[in-house]
């Protein structure tokens, strides 16, 4: 009844797609392996879109849809910020903004044994790594990196946590450093942890960490620390949070201008 137009992948690449768009016709491609990322699904002989977003392609054969939402889809090796909801005998129950609540085994800490199980209150914020994320099962987390070291994972004390979309989190974690973080880091000193699930934690650094010049240190666990000569105060946390929340839809240059104007006003 409907005529199938031959769909070549190039027609939709880097364009906005909506659910129902057929982006690939498998009958025209022979003997190729294609890897599908988030937002795409296979429907008999065609690849169609499940979520609205921009279709991306990476050589040799990976296709995915990039979109920004307020909820998170758990995937392995993501660093996220979770909030402890409950604690059981074997696991802590941690909310990571996904469809199911995640489990953090009580032994998943560096040097963790049955004798030194950490005590987390309900509501504490943790920086964790997703270890298992299978469909239909609760995700599993860990407070160590792949080799078993603590590596900045664990409890985040003090500071201020706010929620953003997953797209903004990805932008903050991109390399080279996101313009808004770079502009803020040149003038203020603060500590920040960004979770890929759309949660950002900002804290002020005590003044004894004064250094001349500015340096940006990117740890392997993707936690960024920026520090400068000026002393820190709780108002820096407010300024940094507001600047980050405003920067989602701005380009690089616009972000720098926005940060400059903001810092001029508070001086």
């Amino acid at each position: 009844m409907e005529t199938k137009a031959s769909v070549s992948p190039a027609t939709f690449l880097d364009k906005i797609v909506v659910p129902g768009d057929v982006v690939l016709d498998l009958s025209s491609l022979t003997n190729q392996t294609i890897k599908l990322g988030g937002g795409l699904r296979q429907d008999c002989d065609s690849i169609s879109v499940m979520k609205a977003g921009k279709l991306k392609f990476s050589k040799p054969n990976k296709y995915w849809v990039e979109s920004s939402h307020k909820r998170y889809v758990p995937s392995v090796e993501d660093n996220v910020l979770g909030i402890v909801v409950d604690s059981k005998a074997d696991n802590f129950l941690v909310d990571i903004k996904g469809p199911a609540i995640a489990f953090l085994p009580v032994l998943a800490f560096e040097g963790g044994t049955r004798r030194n199980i950490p005590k987390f209150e309900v509501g504490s914020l943790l920086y964790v790594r997703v270890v298992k994320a299978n469909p239909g099962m609760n995700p599993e987390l860990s407070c160590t990196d792949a080799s078993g070291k603590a590596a900045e994972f664990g409890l985040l004390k003090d500071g201020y946590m706010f929620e953003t979309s997953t797209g903004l989190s990805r932008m903050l974690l991109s390399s080279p450093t996101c313009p808004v973080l770079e502009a803020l880091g040149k003038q203020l000193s603060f500590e920040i942890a960004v979770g890929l699930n759309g949660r950002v934690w900002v804290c002020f650094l005590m003044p004894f960490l004064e250094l001349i010049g500015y340096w940006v240190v990117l740890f392997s666990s993707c936690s960024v620390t920026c520090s400068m000569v000026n002393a820190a105060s709780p108002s820096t946390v407010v300024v940094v949070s507001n600047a980050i929340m405003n920067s989602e839809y701005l380009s690089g240059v616009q972000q720098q201008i926005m940060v400059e104007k903001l810092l001029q006003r508070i001086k």
Partner: protein
Amino acid sequence: MEIDRADGRTANQLRPLSWSRNTLHRAHGSASWSQGDTKVLAAVYGPKAGTKKNENPEKPCFEVIWKPKSGQIGKLEKEYEMILKRTVQSICILTVNQNTTTSIIIQVVHDDGAVSFDDYVFQYSVFISLLPCAINAACAALVDAGIPMKHLAVAICCCLAESGYVILDPTKLEEQVTLISSQYLFADLSEITGIIWLE
């Protein structure tokens, strides 16, 4: 053949359409949809863990809450909720996010007044164009929230004018004088779902 409509539209012309997404700060997905004077706001929360008691845990559960502009929630609102729930279940993918609940809340912001019938025939007043507007708003809100969907859904209302011609997207006055009106939902191009209202 040209027919005269009160607001100067042709038979196939819709009222001015406008919609916007991400209108609500707290909702995980939201959209507002307006066709002419009818305006509906839809909000989506979820997917959240757990399903309701009598629902199948092997599929994601969708619950729809319809909030009218004013008045109590009655049978009409329950009927709208049921129609919307079945629509959403047919366009969303049911093999992902098992054992979760996604809530869709529809708030009628403005419904261009109400059409009232004789009391002994109908117990309530109903404006036919409201449901297609709500379906469009709900679909847009689901896309905004990132719920995996098979395809988009589009709904339209049409009725039979006095002159015998079929006109699309009737206004309140045109509806008052019509004999029959129906609403159509287009989801997958291979199937068309329709609801027909007779008066």
